[in-house]
């Protein structure tokens, strides 16, 4: 992970709310969102988790809905919204949330909330150097704040909410601070973006990012059928082809055309259709330049933007050079499943199985962040999970993550942090496998970890008693969540 990404700060801030008065501009559409959220505890997964609160911004859109950022309402247990000029907090709920593009749509239980509000309309992509205004409640203020700046850059950016997804984002130099999150960025009376992240610390100044309207519109369209399907992905890696010898050897004649397919991930959109070594010449009829760009709507932009705008089940037509001859290939787009392990997850309880004080958890970003010492093997399994195709053998990587010390497992302590290979002779490929393997009959449970090491043996005759003891001592409320 490039370090720069780590310095992104999500723009939520914790503060109390009181009445606010009407303000100019889109004041009649502005919503101040207060969220109580419970963060899951991946190090003690049966724990209820830490409760905190935060404030963000939102705005009313057509259909009696409120648009905001996903990170404003993630893991929420209670949400209230307040509109400009009305001191009453109204209880709201999440209708749709898209963690991969940091957007959410809220509804309000009592629709009278929307009386007197004005839904905002969306505009297009603002021009570079044009002026935009960001509305929100930065640093927890009660009153609506407006900052103005110019559009500095339009480019693909990593969305730090999930840490793995990158989409189009617009950089603006208007001051954007915690509390601006989810607020509209306006130009000519229309929303041209949703403020969502910025740089914090000494890395950069006056760098704020907003989610541009193509991403917002895609989200709105995706949820029209009532569910959010996520972004679609080629599930293949591709690389610029700037070397003449590389192009010539692969039979590409045009000097400025084509990207090279490096890897194709199993079960993804491209599996069985694309091969490593293929050269993509065009996408949906648009020429792919050898730096991976295309001309789309008058802009030179990333080829990925074509896939970005599509939905589950949509087709994409590729012209591909393979073995010196051109082929037309049509793909049906699907979700990028192997990558989801590397994404931060929200609104989910940590999954685990606890047997005889031995805690088994699937490897994930949230899990890894909860661990103090991560050895080379686990780091490798996380970082190279997709690129080295580890997902083939390990649809889930199950880690013996903790040992709740008890007489039954007192010799097991050194095995903490190991990856589970087999339990009772059964190959472990998911947390479900762990639960079912422990259900096998026999005198002993035998757990084998990846690499050198002796098997871990638990005698079943003493296990029930030990489990009860461990539950009591360690305050374990439930022994599994699959």
């Amino acid at each position, binding site marked *: 992970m490039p370090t720069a990404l780590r310095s992104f700060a999500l723009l939520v801030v914790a503060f109390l709310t009181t009445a606010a008065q009407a303000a100019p501009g889109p004041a009649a559409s502005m919503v101040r969102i207060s969220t109580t959220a419970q963060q899951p505890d991946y190090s003690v997964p049966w724990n209820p988790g830490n409760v905190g609160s935060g404030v963000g911004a939102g705005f009313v859109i057509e259909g009696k809905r409120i648009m905001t950022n996903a990170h404003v309402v993630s893991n929420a247990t209670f949400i209230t919204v307040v509109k400009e000029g009305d001191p009453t907090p109204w209880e709201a709920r999440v209708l749709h949330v898209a963690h991969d593009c940091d957007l959410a749509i809220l509804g309000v239980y009592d629709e009278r909330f929307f009386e007197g509000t004005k839904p905002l309309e969306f505009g297009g992509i603002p021009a570079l150097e044009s002026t935009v205004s960001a509305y929100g409640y930065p640093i927890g203020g009660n009153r609506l704040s407006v900052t103005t700046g110019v559009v500095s850059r339009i480019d693909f950016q990593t969305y730090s909410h999930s840490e793995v997804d990158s989409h189009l984002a617009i950089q603006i130099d208007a001051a954007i601070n915690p509390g601006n999150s989810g607020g509209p960025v306006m130009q000519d009376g229309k929303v041209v973006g949703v403020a969502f992240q910025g740089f914090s610390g000494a890395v950069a100044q006056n760098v704020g990012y907003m989610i541009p309207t193509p991403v917002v519109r895609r989200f709105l369209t995706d949820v029209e059928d009532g569910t959010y399907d996520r972004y679609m992905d080629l599930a293949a890696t591709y690389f*610029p082809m700037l070397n003449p010898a590389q192009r010539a*050897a692969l039979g590409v004649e045009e000097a400025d055309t084509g990207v090279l397919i490096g890897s194709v991930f199993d079960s993804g959109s491209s599996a069985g259709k694309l091969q*490593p*070594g293929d050269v993509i010449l065009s996408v949906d009829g648009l020429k792919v330049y050898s730096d991976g760009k295309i001309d789309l709507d008058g802009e030179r932009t990333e080829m990925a933007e074509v896939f970005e705008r599509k939905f589950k089940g949509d087709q994409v037509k590729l012209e591909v050079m393979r073995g010196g001859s051109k082929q037309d290939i049509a793909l049906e787009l699907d979700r990028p499943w192997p990558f989801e392990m590397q994404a931060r997850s929200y609104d989910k309880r940590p999954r685990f199985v606890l047997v005889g004080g031995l805690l088994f958890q699937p490897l994930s970003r949230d899990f890894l962040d909860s661990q103090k010492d991560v050895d080379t093997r686990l780091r490798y399994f996380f970082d190279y999970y997709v690129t080295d195709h580890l997902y083939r053998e390990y649809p889930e990587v199950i880690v013996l993550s903790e040992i709740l010390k008890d007489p039954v497992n007192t010799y097991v302590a050194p095995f903490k942090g190991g990856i589970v290979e087999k339990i009772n002779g059964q190959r472990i490929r998911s947390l479900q496998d762990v639960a079912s393997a422990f259900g096998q009959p026999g005198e002993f449970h035998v757990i084998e970890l990846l690499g050198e090491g*002796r098997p871990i043996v*638990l005698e079943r005759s003493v296990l029930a008693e030990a489990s009860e003891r461990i539950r009591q001592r360690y305050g374990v409320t439930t022994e599994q969540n699959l």
Partner: protein
Amino acid sequence: MHLTRLSFLPGRSRWSRRTAAILAALLLSAPLGEGMETLRTYLPAAEATPTPADQAAPAAEVPPAMAPEAEPVMAKLPPVVRVNVASQSYNFSQPWRKNPPVLRQGLGVVLTDGRILVTAELVNNHTYVELEKPETALKAAAQVEVVDYDANLALLAAPAAEFLQSIGGARLDETAAVGDRVEILQLESNGTPVRTPATITTIEVGAYPVDENAFLVFKLSAPLQSRENSFTVPVFKEDRLVGLVMRYDPRSQTADVVPAPVIQHFLDAAERDPYAGFPRAGLTFADTRDPQLRRFAKLPEGTGGAYITKVLPGSPAAAAGLKVGDVLLRVDGQTIDQDGNYEDPRFGKISLAHYVSTVMQAGQKLPILVWRDGAEIPLEGTVAPRDRSRMVSQPYIFDAPPKFVIVGGLVFSELSRQYLREWGPNWTREAPLHLVYLDRYQNELPANRGKMVYVSSVLPGPNTVGYENLSYEVVEEVNGRPIKSLADLAAAVDSPTDQFHRIKLAEDPGLVVLDVEGSKAEEERIKRDYRLPSLRQLDGAE
């Protein structure tokens, strides 16, 4: 602004070393005083009457028979010489380069045959080794005869007899045990011996500096001061060599020592040509203390046994027929306890690893009794040093240049831990993770994997446009040939199938293509512009 004591110090701190040496020498020549204490006799071992460590032996009490022809004062010198080493390591990131030379100083222990024992760390990558007599600063060039980096020991050829005149020879201690008082010997810059009393607190099998080598270690508790001869500091018990300090932790004031039994094995092995070194069984084991494991493995109550967790292919253990899951009960007649220890007559419970590597010599038969499927099974192997050529990634490379091949601006290297160490002390976190992983878990790779060849850097030019960002991708094939060594890669680029070199990578972008003619031209330019004598170094370290 605090001046405090600083104002008293400048005069002293400006003393040159020379001045200090003269002053110290003056002190020594005084008939009485502190100097006398430091002039303890190291008698030639053959005829030695051990001098109690806690008693100073005044010069006059040296038996006349012990005094060599030279003046009596010289006869009381400890059997050590300074060893000054100029060392130049190779730069593994830019493998055609050597790093700037560094100078190291240590003490060499003069053995009874005149050869000089030092730690291997002192002489690694040496370009020049020099002996210096502590008192007179007389110098002589020296040759490294045998070096064993695993055991961290090296033997220098004996200098001319006159050089060693008046310096006795040390014999190895055969008695030191836990609780014994010993002395760590250092020299002041003027040659005055400094003896720091120490106590042996622990004797166990522990980590040695390179690789994951584990041999016998004596741990000493001692308030050691840092002196310039920091590499190789000998430890004596009376007049006998107990070992060489290889590590010192000033916070806990503990010193780890390469002890006499390991030195003795090294010296015995050095008598034979070729030097075979320390044998290994080629297995790893775990303890069998867990009663649940014992019942699962049907191990009888009250017995010992070490659970075999890995048998290296091609190793003596594999040849003997050992399998993962076997439990070692006896090795060469020694009963193995639940921790994998045997009962050593001198040191008590010591890991089996010591017995195989140090008590035994390479080539000896190794009778083994294992517990398998509820029955005792006798096996037999022959212990042998490890075959480093079978290793995917060499744990260390000294005294030899790194291998590399430059093809049209792409620099290819062969994976070694020495290369990864270029990332500094935190290399396991900072070096490319997949290479760290491949090195760390190389035993899990298929047995015929061969070496890992990868793109280590790019010297950008017209030929490598678009490849500037390649970094550490492992090479699978070149021109259709599988790559299991840099020699394979060199052979493959020497026989292109058409006008392109096709380099297939295990990682993205998967395929790199170079123009054959363009590469040749580029290689000429690189040779000229970067002033490289050669674009290939294939006969480096194995």
